[in-house]
Each structure stands twice: as structure tokens, then as C-alpha cells.
């Protein structure tokens, strides 16, 4: 029987095995940010413990950094978290891409961008979207602060081997259908629990044809389906993305590593605990209408009605969600009016995302009454976009062009959606209050967000492409 990538990475990292206990797993890369680490560092200090491998640890600040006037943090508690991280990194010798570093950005954007994220690695971070790094064929998952402390102290974690789920997406995506739509479609179809207890391996033609950035968008939202990790077997696309990056293996050693990485790919005859097949041809641009990411519909469809659901729990959830969202059963998705647009977050803030949004925006104007923000995922992404002149396209259209950070994905900084207003957002969570108390979030792709900004309501981006090709 062949092995899956999860089997291979797991076997490679077990430090200690004991009957009746989880395995003790070695961690190759530990990413740290300002929100979930202070209590872990103070735990170390209380017990006089050190960081075992500062060289396998890397920190940045992203969650509550301001995206304008970044040196004027008016929120004293946020400032306290940021300076605490600086102090902790200095005291424990952990490398930090701080507020002034050209490498600063959202932790899940900079890991891959700097070449820290590599196939076959075990990667953890005190953040549930660590699953993003799985795009590189790494086993990457979010951990809590107690575990952050445990990894800092021991470079290991006690983990039970998860089950594996093969999610195979074949067929061809229509023009205007993106990686974001693929994962939203999967969630709409299979719900927010289908991945609980599993690591998802994304396979099939659709995934193979994707760029690394698209794969990251998919893996990013594995957690929205309940899976702690999602990954893609490494291939040539993976290897050529890593080559030449700051922390990638040196040119002389690169081939040796590349060979090793390829061996992590799942064997043809690998066995899985569960298999789900998806037809890529059926996927359309998607828009979430409710208060969890599975409450999502195709842009040319309607919001469901209570008749569409069987159980009382489901009917009740629908009613609660629509009451919060200020929407009606059966309402057409394209009729939802929006007042805010957020292009950013670790799901969709990389250069390709910004390019494709700019493509839609080019030469047009933001609809009156819509406030639209572009927040690049990292300072490197920002710089690259500016070199291509993308910032000008957005600014001329009436968008705000910001510095890197999590920003309106969870609105821990000043970027907040006011209560009762609707936001077309390229982020990953539409929970109640996520973008501000009473804020109404709609998850969409960068193209869909850009088109919504221009029209003040959702529009089917496939139509834009059709017009262009005529």
C-alpha cells in the first residue's frame, strides 16, 4: 500500500511514541505573532525556560498593526501587544519582522514569500489559518497559546495522527471563477464540519493547474471546513516558487532539496479515510450570504428559504443568520447592496489577487457611497504592486491603498465596518461581529469584490469577461 503525504511527513517527524499517548512530533517551523504569543512567553519566563530553537522560530506583527500612519498606534492595548512582542523576541533571541521591516506582513503571507515555508516541513503558528502553508506540501496547522509555549520550550508537540481526506477537484473552471470560489463552493456543498478530524489533501486537475498563490487560498480555508490542516502534494510549481527566496536553500544545495521535496508527494496508490469528489465545471463565482462560510450561494442564485431545509436546527440557523444580515429568504444575491469593500487578508492579499482585482477596476470608478480598501498582505506585496503601478489604478478609481496587515479581516485595528452595513470581503470568515459589531460580511473573490465596489451590489464577473471577449 502506498503512502499519502500526511503519512510520510508524520513518520518523518515522530520523536517519541508511547502506548496510549499521542505521538511527540518535531516542529520544523514555528511562526509567531503578537496576539497569541504574549501569554506563552510569560509562561516561559515564569518557569525560567528558554526558547529551544530560536533558529526555527520566526515572528512578525500583523493582527493589530495600523494600515495607515503605522507609527501612530492610538490603541494603547494594541501598542502594548506589539511592544511586548518586540521585547519578547529580543529577550529570547527570536527573529522578528517588526513594523519597520521590509519583510513585515500577515504571517501566512510572509512565511511562503520569504521561503521559510517548504515541502515536508511541520509548521505551526498560534493561528488557525496556518493551514495556508499546506499549499507547499507542508503539514501546517494552527495551535493554541499553551501549545505555542510548548513548542517554544521543546520544539515539539504531542499530536494524534489525524485521519486523511482526499478532496479531488477535476474539470475546468470557467473564466471568472477563482480559487476562492472553489473553496467557497466546497464549503457551501459540504458544510463547516466535513473536515473535522481530518487533514485534507487537495488533488485533481483543477489543483494541479493552479499557481502557488491559488493553492494557498484553497488551503487557507481548510479550517472553515473544520480541518486543522489542508495540503497539496509538492510538484514543479511548488519548487519553482521557492527557488531564490530569502530563506530557501542556497543555489548549490537547491537540487538536493528539490529531489527530497518531490518524494513527499502522495503515492498513486495511497489510501485515505475519506474521499470527496468535486466537479470543477459546476463552480460559479460564489457569495456568502449568512454568518458562517458554508452559508454561501452562486452569484446568479438566491438566498435559500426555510423550505430548503429539513431540520429545525437548520431552519432556525437560517432565520438567525438572515436576521443578523438584514436579508430576506429567497432574495437574489445580485440584489444585495454593499457599502464597503475589503480586498486583503491571508486568503486573498497576494500579488496575483491584487492584480486580478486591478484588472476589473482599471479605468473605472468606485460606486458612490461605497468605501473600498486594498490592504496588501505584506510589505513585499505592496512594493511589487506599486512597481507595477497597481496602486494608481486603485487610487484613481477611488480605493484606499494601505500598508500590510490583517486589517478588516478581523478589525482589531481601526479598519472597521459599521453596524448594519454590508461588506464584500476577500477574507475567510463571516461570523457575527467579525468585521465590527453588527457588521455584515460577504465572502467573495478579489474579482467579485472589485466588481461589487464599482457597482454597489454584487455582479456576476463572468459577464464582465464575456463582454470583453465579444
Amino acid at each position: 500500500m502506498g503512502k499519502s503525504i500526511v503519512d510520510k511527513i508524520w513518520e518523518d517527524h515522530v520523536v517519541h511514541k508511547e502506548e496510549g499517548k499521542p505521538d511527540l512530533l518535531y516542529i520544523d517551523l514555528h511562526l509567531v505573532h503578537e496576539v497569541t504569543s504574549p501569554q506563552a512567553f510569560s509562561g516561559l519566563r515564569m518557569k525560567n525556560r528558554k526558547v529551544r530553537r530560536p533558529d526555527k522560530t520566526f515572528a512578525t506583527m500583523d493582527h493589530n498593526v495600523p494600515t495607515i500612519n503605522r507609527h501612530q498606534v492610538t490603541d494603547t492595548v494594541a501598542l502594548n501587544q506589539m511592544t511586548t512582542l518586540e521585547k519578547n523576541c529580543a529577550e529570547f533571541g527570536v527573529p522578528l519582522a517588526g513594523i519597520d521591516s521590509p519583510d513585515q506582513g500577515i504571517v501566512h503571507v510572509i512565511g511562503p514569500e520569504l521561503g521559510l515555508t517548504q515541502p515536508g516541513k511541520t509548521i505551526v503558528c498560534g493561528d488557525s489559518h496556518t493551514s495556508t502553508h499546506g499549499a507547499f506540501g507542508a503539514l501546517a496547522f494552527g495551535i493554541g497559546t499553551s501549545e505555542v509555549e510548548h513548542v517554544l520550550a521543546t520544539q515539539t508537540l504531542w499530536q494524534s495522527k489525524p485521519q486523511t481526506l482526499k478532496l479531488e477537484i477535476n474539470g475546468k473552471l470557467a473564466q471568472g471563477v477563482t480559487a476562492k470560489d472553489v473553496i467557497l463552493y466546497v464549503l457551501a456543498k459540504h458544510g463547516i464540519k466535513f473536515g473535522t478530524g481530518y487533514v485534507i489533501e487537495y488533488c485533481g486537475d483543477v489543483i494541479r493547474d493552479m499557481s502557488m498563490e491559488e493553492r494557498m487560498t484553497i488551503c487557507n480555508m481548510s479550517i472553515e471546513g473544520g480541518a486543522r490542516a489542508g495540503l497539496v502534494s509538492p510538484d514543479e510549481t511548488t519548487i519553482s516558487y521557492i527557488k531564490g527566496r530569502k530563506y530557501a536553500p542556497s543555489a548549490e544545495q537547491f537540487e538536493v532539496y528539490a529531489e527530497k521535496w518531490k518524494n513527499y508527494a502522495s503515492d498513486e496508490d495511497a489510501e485515505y479515510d475519506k474521499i470527496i469528489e468535486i466537479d470543477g465545471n459546476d463552480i460559479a463565482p460564489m457569495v456568502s450570504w449568512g454568518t458562517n462560510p458554508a452559508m454561501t450561494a452562486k452569484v446568479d442564485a438566491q438566498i435559500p428559504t426555510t423550505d430548503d431545509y429539513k431540520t429545525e436546527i437548520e431552519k432556525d440557523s437560517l432565520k438567525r443568520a438572515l436576521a443578523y444580515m438584514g436579508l430576506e429568504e429567497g432574495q437574489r444575491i445580485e440584489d444585495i447592496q454593499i457599502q464597503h469593500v475589503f480586498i486583503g487578508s491571508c486568503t486573498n492579499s497576494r500579488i496575483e489577487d491584487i492584480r486580478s482585482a486591478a484588472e476589473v477596476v482599471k479605468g473605472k470608478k468606485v460606486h458612490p457611497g461605497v468605501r473600498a480598501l486594498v490592504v496588501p498582505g505584506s510589505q513585499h506585496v505592496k512594493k511589487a504592486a506599486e512597481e507595477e503601478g497597481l496602486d494608481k489604478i486603485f487610487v484613481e478609481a477611488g480605493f484606499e491603498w494601505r500598508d500590510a496587515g490583517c486589517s478588516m479581516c478581523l478589525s482589531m485595528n481601526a479598519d472597521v465596518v459599521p453596524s448594519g452595513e454590508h461588506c464584500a470581503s476577500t477574507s475567510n470568515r463571516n461570523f457575527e461581529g467579525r468585521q465590527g459589531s453588527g457588521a455584515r460580511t460577504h465572502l467573495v473573490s478579489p474579482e467579485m469584490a472589485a466588481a461589487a465596489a464599482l457597482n454597489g451590489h454584487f455582479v456576476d464577473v463572468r459577464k464582465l469577461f464575456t463582454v470583453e471577449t465579444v
Partner: protein
Amino acid sequence: MSGFKEFEGKAVALDRANVDTDQIIPKQFLKRIEKTGFGKYLFYDWRYNADGQPNEEFELNKPENAGASILVANENFGCGSSREHAPWALLDYGFKVVIAPSFADIFKQNCLKNGILPIALDEAEVNTLLAKGKEKAFSLNINLEEQTVTDQDGFSAEFPISSYWKTMLVNGWDEIEITMQLDDKISAYEKQKEVAQ
């Protein structure tokens, strides 16, 4: 973390499914750098009205539910982010046990690591408790050694827990301490890996 074997406590029923971590502890309270003091903010958006006054309709605010140490909720409790502030808030408020038909993975782990016992019971069993909670305040007896939940009215259910976590919770052990005893093995692993590269 102090260990627990058996305890009796007041239970409060929160009949909602998919209670996510943003609801358990809204993100505006994540900026603290301590582990304590989060209890005040637990279920903040449900517990308080927009004007900051307590929402009297909310289950935790009913006088008969004051001092509850066991929370009973519906399926998929704790979904959402990996923030450990959620169990800290539950713990700081006074909850030692959460009972639901199912839990989100990370949340469950985070509870165990902080000494909160997440108990998964059958849907029917949870429904019995939820229905009971709607009528009156009630107590439950949690016996971790026997792995049972019982009450004076004859309710009795068994729950699963791995022997690993059972031992950890019963003894109130610190996981890092245990791992550090394996330091030789970790060093040996590191050495072997560095040679391989």
C-alpha cells in the same frame, strides 16, 4: 492547574448550535497580554445590550444561573479560531466543564490543556439536559475517574476521554514538564536530522 477527580456543580443550558469563538470571546478583548481577567467578557455580545447593560434574557444573566460551573450547549461548540482566550474566558468565568454533542477540534484541545473538561454526550442526552435547563437551574455530578455525568433525578451518561488526557487532568500535570523529561530523545532526533541534511 489543579487536578480534579469528581465534582458537583451548577449547570447552565445554552441551547445554541455552532457557538463560535468570536461569540465566546469577541476579538476586541484579545489584546490583553495576561491569561486571566477574560471572564468579564465571556459571550460579551450576548450578555450585554448595546448600551452596556446586561441582557436579562441571556441565559447566563438569569439570577438562578449565577455561579454555574458547567455549561451545556448544542453541537459544534467552539468552532472558529484557535484562540485560547475562549477557554481562558470560560475558566475565568468559573466554568470547569462544557457539555455538548460535539466540539471543534482545536477548541477541545485548548480546553484540555487549560484544565477544562469538554464532555461529548449523545444528542439525545444533551437534549435532555438542555430541556431541563429551560425549566430550572440544576446541578450535575461529574466523575472523571468513572467518566460519568449524573444528577439527582436519575440522569446518567458516560463520556469518552483518552487515557492520556484523563491522567493529565486528574493529576493536574503540566505538559511541558513531561516533554522536557524526553529531552535526550529530542536532541537525538535533531542530531540525526542535521546529519541527514
